[in-house]
């Protein structure tokens, strides 16, 4: 098979070799259960504690404030349900935004069915949450604000510091889904007044199936998973030791090389955006023009539909993603693209290409070169394009 160009790094990233090497012994040699008292178990326990320290160091947190989970979705579910149920006596109101990941949105919808009241904040055309609306939504009943650090589709980075200050001033817990931000943005939980933060290893070149929730010391939340005494009685289940070791190594590596990573990705991103805009008409860039994740691009090509664009790119050996309805299994295009005010027909034509550490300038140029005829071919087939040309 010829070289495959992977530009879907927001979906997942390959596990780096150095990370995998650290993990491997914990499958077959150092396989002890961390809860066992003999030395084989102790070895696993120590490995987990090392990883906890690695995560804590990156976040500016204490080790004991890091809890491992099965991934970002579990961390989001735990943070929101845990806070909601443990603080119900204080109030039943939660504030989030319209562009959260489904792990947050569907959890909030679940809580609505349990009698909680949820405010879904609007975002502006770039996908930035409305701070004024946030302030005016807060009531005596508000127990949690949950706003993502950076958006997974359009890459827009939220004013987390401002939100953290508001939450602190009002004495409301602040959770952020930082799944897309970790490995791309320097985050200090104290500086930003974050009380809970979700992260997932496979977004920063670690393995799948492992994540963590940062819980500020003293924050009251219920358990999500009951059972054994693991994670200080807060998250039951035998620990995914190889995964945890991989997460620790991956986050350490990511922050050792953060500046280099960001410089490279921003340069590739700008090259891709320029290439697309210089060569293709009737295209828009979704998300904030500058305040966005270093590797994120999200375009809408008018008059064509995203899935046929993805299929065509796949035929040329390029992997991307789309917010088109046809790739989500529902009939509506992405909730994020609708929230930034795009009409359905434009939102259907979206293409997300997310760059990573393994992409090159040559790959970016190849993708632009292939995109030009693909977009033209699909437009030539489209009755919307025909209509638009007629009107011009």
């Amino acid at each position, binding site marked *: 098979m010829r070289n495959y160009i992977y530009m879907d790094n927001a979906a997942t990233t390959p596990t780096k070799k150095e990370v995998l090497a650290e993990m491997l012994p914990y499958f077959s040699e150092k396989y002890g259960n961390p809860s066992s008292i003999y030395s084989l178990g102790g070895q696993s326990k120590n490995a987990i504690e090392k990883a906890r320290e690695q995560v804590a160091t990156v976040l500016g947190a204490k080790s004991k404030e890091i809890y491992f989970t099965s991934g970002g979705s579990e961390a989001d579910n735990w943070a929101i349900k845990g806070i909601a149920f443990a603080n119900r006596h204080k109030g039943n109101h939660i504030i989030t935004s319209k562009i959260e990941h489904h792990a947050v949105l569907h959890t909030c919808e679940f809580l609505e069915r349990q009698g909680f009241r949820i405010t879904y904040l609007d975002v502006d055309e770039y996908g930035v949450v409305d701070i004024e609306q946030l302030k005016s939504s807060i009531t005596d009943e508000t127990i949690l604000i949950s706003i993502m650090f950076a958006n997974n589709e359009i890459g827009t980075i939220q004013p987390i510091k401002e939100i953290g200050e508001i939450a602190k001033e009002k004495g409301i817990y602040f959770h952020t889904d930082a799944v897309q931000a970790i490995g791309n943005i320097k985050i200090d939980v104290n500086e930003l007044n974050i009380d809970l933060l979700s992260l997932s290893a496979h977004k920063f070149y670690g393995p799948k199936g492992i994540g963590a929730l940062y819980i500020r010391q003293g924050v009251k939340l219920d358990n999500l998973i009951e059972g054994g005494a693991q994670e200080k009685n807060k998250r039951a289940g035998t620990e995914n030791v190889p995964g945890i070791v991989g997460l620790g190594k991956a986050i350490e590596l990511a922050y050792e090389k953060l500046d280099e990573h960001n410089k490279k990705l921003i340069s590739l991103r700008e090259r891709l955006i320029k290439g697309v805009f210089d060569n293709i008409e009737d295209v828009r860039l979704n998300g904030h023009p500058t305040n966005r994740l270093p590797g994120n691009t999200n375009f809408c090509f008018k*008059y*064509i*539909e*995203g*899935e*046929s664009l993805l*299929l065509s790119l796949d*035929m040329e050996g390029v992997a991307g993603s789309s917010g*088109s*309805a*046809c790739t989500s*299994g529902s*009939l509506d*295009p992405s909730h994020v693209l609708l929230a930034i005010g795009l009409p*359905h*027909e434009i939102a*259907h034509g979206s293409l997300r290409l997310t760059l990573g550490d393994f992409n090159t300038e040559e790959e970016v140029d190849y993708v632009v070169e292939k995109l030009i005829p693909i977009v033209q071919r699909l437009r*030539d*087939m*489209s*009755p*919307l*394009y*025909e209509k638009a040309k007629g009107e011009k």
Partner: protein
Amino acid sequence: MYSEKVMDHFRNPRNVGEIPNADGVGEVGNPKCGDIMKMYLKIEDGIIVDAKFKTFGCGSAIASSSMATEMIKGKSINEAMKISNKAVAEALDGLPPVKMHCSVLAEQAIKSALLDYSKKNNIHIDGLEDFNPDEDPHGEEIEE
């Protein structure tokens, strides 16, 4: 996810384009749902001698349009009327369940173009009495 047949018709769609002075033109679907099919027919002595299409939509919408035009070319109007969405999907070696509405759209595009032909020529076509080209194929029960 898609059959080889679907991919073949997506890669090399048959009969893309327009027919100038077509005898029947039908457009179904809407941009909100992410798919629009426009079908052009050339009809001589009750036989569809040529069919072309333009489609805004996903891979299976493009493949369904392509297959539908292939299936009706050379057929009489009555034969074309009998082509169901199921027949289009089967000819493509099946469509994923969430994509069955694309084949419904193809069936409707044929009927919509024939309806236009019948109106222009003031002739009656059996089976078009209750046909509503604006009906949304997404909501209804789809024959799989």
